[in-house]
């Protein structure tokens, strides 16, 4: 037992040191591509750290969104940056930008230091041993409609957190769309390897997403994890050269985008009118309400994340030039 704890301690120490080291070299990296690869590696180690902290839900989300999808998004952003740089040749503007960035460069550590001091103050002013709210969660689990405490907290006890997160995602997509974009709307044909990979993987990813969504009621999983796996299937299809068009480009597409946050907001409003409290689910229907909310949220999260990757609202065929 002694050697085991020692082993676990040294593993944790090694993990922490690697995280700090990776963060340092990725922030100091001149080559953006290298920095992105390091960022993905950082995300994967971070997921491992969450596993060590006994938080598999966060670990799943970190690995899928933090490392996987964000990495893919950063890579496409980098590819677009390079296209813009070679097209416009606005070196003057870029120089100006990097000079502005220089001043930011010195401001960032200062801001981070302030945040660290604040966080440190909060952490050290907490009582050293405290059950927190876990007792309250445990006593109310019977009323939540699910048997996994993380899902109960995210969807029921603090449902408005998830509600707001959904809207943050939607607003971020609107922000990206408002920038305009340089994505090619034309379909391309992939090579045989990518083609086979995508054709085999996409059905598996859909199945895994459904599994994660379903299992979220009583084990680690849930809407965000399932949504990001489903989004990965979408990103794979987009990488393969598929472009949504036709019926996927207009009303149905936009309806799926707002379905998750919309249903959440409608539920909240209805419950407010009926019971005078936002998102206070009636106990007997809590399970089915949470499942409905999570299902639509999964679809919306997946489509929003994949649409972020496409970075431009899909046009209908008529608008094609």
């Amino acid at each position: 037992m002694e050697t085991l704890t020692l082993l676990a301690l040294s593993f944790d120490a090694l993990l922490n040191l690697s995280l700090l080291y990776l963060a340092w070299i990725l922030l100091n990296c001149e080559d953006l591509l290298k920095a992105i690869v390091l960022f993905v590696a950082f995300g994967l180690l971070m997921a491992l750290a969450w596993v060590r902290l006994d938080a598999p839900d966060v670990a799943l989300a970190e690995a899928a969104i933090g490392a996987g999808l964000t990495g893919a998004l950063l890579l496409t952003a980098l590819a677009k940056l390079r296209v813009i740089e070679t097209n416009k040749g606005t070196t003057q503007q870029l120089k100006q930008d990097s000079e502005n960035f220089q001043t930011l460069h010195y401001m960032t550590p200062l801001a981070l230091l302030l945040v660290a001091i604040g966080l440190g103050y909060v952490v050290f002013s907490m009582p050293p041993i405290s059950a927190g709210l876990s007792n309250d969660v445990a006593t109310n689990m019977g009323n939540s409609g699910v048997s996994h405490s993380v899902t109960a907290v995210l969807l029921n006890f603090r449902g408005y957190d998830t509600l707001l997160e959904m809207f943050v995602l939607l607003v971020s997509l609107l922000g990206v769309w408002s920038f305009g974009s340089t994505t090619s709307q034309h379909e391309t044909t992939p090579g045989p390897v990518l083609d086979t990979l995508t054709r085999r993987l996409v059905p598996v990813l859909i199945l895994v997403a459904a599994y994660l969504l379903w299992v979220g009621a009583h084990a680690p999983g849930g809407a965000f994890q399932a949504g990001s796996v489903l989004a990965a299937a979408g990103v794979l299809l987009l990488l393969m050269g598929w472009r949504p068009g036709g019926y996927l480009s207009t009303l149905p597409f936009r309806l799926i985008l707002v379905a998750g946050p919309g249903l959440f907001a409608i539920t909240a409003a209805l419950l407010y009118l009926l019971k005078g409290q936002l998102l206070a689910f009636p106990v007997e229907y809590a399970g089915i309400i949470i499942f409905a909310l999570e299902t639509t949220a999964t679809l919306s999260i997946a489509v929003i994340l994949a649409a972020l990757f496409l970075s431009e609202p899909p046009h209908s065929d008529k608008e094609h030039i």
Partner: protein
Amino acid sequence: MTLIDYLSTILLIAGALFFLAGTLGLLRFPDIYTRLHALTKADNVGLGLIVIGLALQSESLASAGKLILIWLLVMFAGASVSNLIASGALQRGIRLWKR
């Protein structure tokens, strides 16, 4: 320790050795193609050994099945991505290493 414990210990250690060899190859081999070759040893054999070692310890057939599914998916994705990286490197005109 039972026989199964010994067996899975041996498999896990063997898997870790394959990962070590793959990592060494990734760091020390001369060009991208040979490095990919080294990585496949860790991904396919190393992970396979570790998965079998863990599957022997799993409580149910379902969790053993999930572990093996992960192995199959990693092999499938790894083989495809290695091919994509290598053909991308060839297209960019990265030469093969010669002694």
